[in-house]
């Protein structure tokens, strides 16, 4: 079907004009920020430590309670639209196996308390290096300190205190953004508003900061496309696809970071824009990247509520696209790890299990036994994706996979 309609659609897409008349606006998020909750955070840290102290001195073994962070501890309901924590807790009781982590948790909590009090911050990497001064209790690898940080974050999320409030920041920044969007930020020193026009970034792009709740937005765009790879993002940016299609492009670079998820969520929620996701047709693109953007993840169950985009829909590449756009000879066979991931999703992932269309699509992919990358459309010409694929798909946006 694609080949016949090719020319008509191309004309239509390129003729589309940028329409600045219907501008939508959004102020900073109403979510409570770090300054509102600093006192609460310090008190909460003290409460946990005091409890440990009292239990220890009563001759009992102290414990810390935190939510389990895995897919088994989330539930999914189409109405709420994201992975909700199911309430399973893990109890870290002081014993030989836990004593090291127990000590590290307390010492990182102490670091957090100081940072909240001084309004400073530490990146996850910096927190890891701080531990190098702890002698025996130092972390061997950042993976270990990240895990303890996640536990602390989970523990305090029960009191609505986020990692940002505790002043721990991820190392990675958010993704890149271009298109019909103006971001209104604030100068950290003067407090003056700074306006960034994402349509005026030249050949570059606006970079999502690690914290996005204080941003304001203005846009005239019709929709957002969240893109997996930098390569595809650059192609669409270079040819100013966003101008012709009147949209915003968000580059995710793999599984989207929290900042990217929160940023996209705010565009979706506050500006009421539809979000279309464009990733590779493989289990990683679908079951990790798309799933995490839309409903969150098991590991960050305690923050999914604000850090996912329930309204996002899956544009492609779908297994059916491989057939419809005759990409069969531009595919690669599924690797054993892909097959395992897909089967795992069918068996254990509450999101996919709730959507028969997805079960069908994943089963179709498994049956075909192949995966296709976004770039595979280059088989039909470098700009086939702009001229043919995207316009064709977007016309049928209501049929996107949920």
């Amino acid at each position, binding site marked *: 079907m694609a080949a016949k309609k090719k020319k008509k659609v191309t004309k239509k897409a390129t003729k589309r004009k940028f329409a600045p008349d219907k501008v939508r606006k959004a102020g900073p998020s109403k979510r409570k920020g770090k300054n509102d909750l600093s006192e609460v955070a310090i008190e909460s840290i003290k409460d946990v430590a005091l409890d440990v*102290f009292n239990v220890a001195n009563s*001759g009992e*073994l102290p414990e810390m309670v935190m939510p389990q962070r895995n897919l088994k501890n989330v539930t999914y309901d189409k109405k709420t639209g994201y992975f909700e924590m199911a309430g399973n807790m893990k109890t870290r009781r*002081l014993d*030989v196996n836990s*004593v090291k982590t*127990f000590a590290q948790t*307390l010492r990182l*909590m102490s670091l957090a308390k100081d940072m909240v009090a001084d309004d400073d911050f530490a990146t996850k990497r910096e927190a890891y290096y701080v531990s190098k001064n702890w002698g025996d209790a130092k972390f061997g690898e950042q993976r270990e300190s990240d895990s303890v940080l996640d536990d602390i974050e989970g523990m305090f999320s029960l009191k609505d205190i986020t990692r940002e409030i505790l002043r721990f920041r991820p190392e990675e920044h958010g993704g890149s953004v271009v298109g019909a969007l103006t971001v209104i930020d604030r100068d950290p020193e003067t407090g003056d508003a700074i306006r960034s026009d994402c349509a005026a970034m030249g050949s570059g792009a606006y970079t999502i900061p690690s914290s996005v709740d204080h941003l304001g937005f203005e846009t005239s765009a019709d929709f957002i496309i969240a893109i997996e790879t930098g390569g595809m993002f650059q192609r669409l940016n270079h040819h100013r696809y966003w101008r012709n299609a009147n949209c915003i492009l968000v580059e995710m670079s793999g599984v989207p970071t929290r900042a990217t998820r929160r940023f996209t969520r705010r565009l979706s929620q506050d500006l009421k824009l539809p979000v279309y996701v464009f990733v590779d047709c493989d289990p990683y693109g679908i079951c990790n990247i798309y799933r995490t953007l839309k409903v969150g993840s098991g590991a960050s169950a305690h923050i999914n509520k604000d850090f996912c985009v329930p309204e996002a829909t899956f544009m492609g590449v779908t297994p059916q696209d491989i057939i419809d756009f005759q990409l069969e000879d531009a595919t690669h066979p599924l690797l054993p790890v892909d097959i395992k991931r897909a089967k795992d999703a069918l068996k254990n992932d509450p999101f996919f299990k709730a959507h028969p269309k997805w079960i069908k699509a994943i089963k179709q992919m498994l049956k075909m036994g192949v995966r296709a990358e976004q770039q595979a459309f280059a088989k039909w010409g470098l700009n086939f994706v702009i001229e043919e694929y995207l316009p064709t798909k977007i016309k049928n946006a209501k049929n996107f996979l949920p």
Partner: protein
Amino acid sequence: MASSQREISISEFFAKNRHLLGFDNPKKALLTTIKEAVDNSMDACEEAGILPEILVEIMPIDGQEDRFKVAIQDNGPGIVKAQVPNIFGKLLYGSKFHSRRQSRGQQGIGISAAGLYAQMTTGKGPEIISRVKRKKAHHFVLQMDSTKNKPMITHDEELDDWHLKHGTRFECALEATYKRGKGSVDDYIKQTAVANPHASLTYLAPGMEEPIVYEASSRVVPERGEEIKPHPYGVELGELIKMLRQTSSRWLSSFLKEDFCRVGPKVAKSIIAEAGLSEKSYPSRIAREEADALHRAIQKAKISSPPTTCLSPIGEERILEGLQKETDADFYAVCTRPPSVYRGNPFQIEVGIAWAKPGDDHLDVDGDGKITKSKKKKRGTFDTENLLGNADDAIRILRFANRVPLLSQQASCGFTKAAISTSWKNYGLQQSKGSMPVGSAVILVHMASVWVPFTSEAKEAIAPYDEILKEVRLAMQEAGRKLGVHIRKGKKISSEFQKRNYIDAFLPHVGIGLQEILKLEPEVREDTVDMLRATLESTRKI
């Protein structure tokens, strides 16, 4: 041709076949000489109910590197003058060959063979000093006529004064090599001390400044096993024919009842009926074919096992004493099996294991569950080889037959076969297929029997009869189980110790974390950490 046919004397036979008796090379000759003399001394002492005190000396002879003088002296009952030449000078003269009684010596070859070897290699016969209670000591020098198997006393002197009230000293010069290490005289003396904790041994060898003294740890002379009549199952056809000829019984039925053990009228009747003979036949008139039928009937008959009162095991307690005395191990396990029977011969197997924990540290758990670490106490290094090997060496097996150490032919010995076919992995030791287990340990196996089935006259290895292998394995399994429990417990303690070290490394950081968050005073922090440590340890009782 006929004129060249003549009788061969046993002494001549020995002179040509001395390897059969353990004199194959100078090193072994020295060991065999001492071994035979010590065995005799021990038997003599125990027979007389005396706690053996034995002195063994090896003295170099000036200017003759390949010759040594050896002396073995005991505090036994002594030997009356008339018997001395026969005992020490005549091969196959002894009290033990015909008796079914547990003793170290069996054939009466050993000590006279040693004398003969000495005489053949140095020209000088053995010298003996012996004193019987309340009599004067005699000093003899013997010379053997190897053609006639007849000893001659070339010197006989009554000594006015000898330092022992009773006892015997055997001395001879022989061609020999003295070496230390495995299978040496040193090794033999040490192992003898392990299996005979009631004996004190004093040992002086070239190169030693002071003699080594192995003190007795037990003051009890082992009970002597009773003498028993042969059991029908153990008698071979030739021996049966000989017994039929020599018996003083007049009727076949009384021959069976009188000359064997465990044969009553009923059993005798059924054997004779099975053989198709008459109860009233004259034993001496039984023909060879009839004897054959009788022999086969015996094998078919149901006869109860021989009495076991003839056996004198070392006993679990004594084995334990012996091992504790001569090894520096952390754990000992012993097992004495109930008596069993092979080919009509009663026997009893005993096994002892001494095991040392690898490494230098020793962990102790006190009543409160506290673990303390200490350096292993080092005992003075032994002059002889430590019986416990290194932790990654194959475990040594000490083999004993009627308390006598077996020093060579380990590989072909039934005891070794039994040890290899025991699955030591079940008991916490490493073992690869078809070999001895590995560890810093020693396994002792003792067989007490009225007749030990050696594979050769040199008495070096036990024939692998199924019944014997089975008993050895059962004994090893029983002792092994005790060892396994200990090793597993030790592993538990050492892993617990590591865990507590781990706790000790991190608990202070829990304190620091709390101190920083709650702004605690240093003493409060210390108290909290101490409290936590105490709580943790009390929940981790072993």
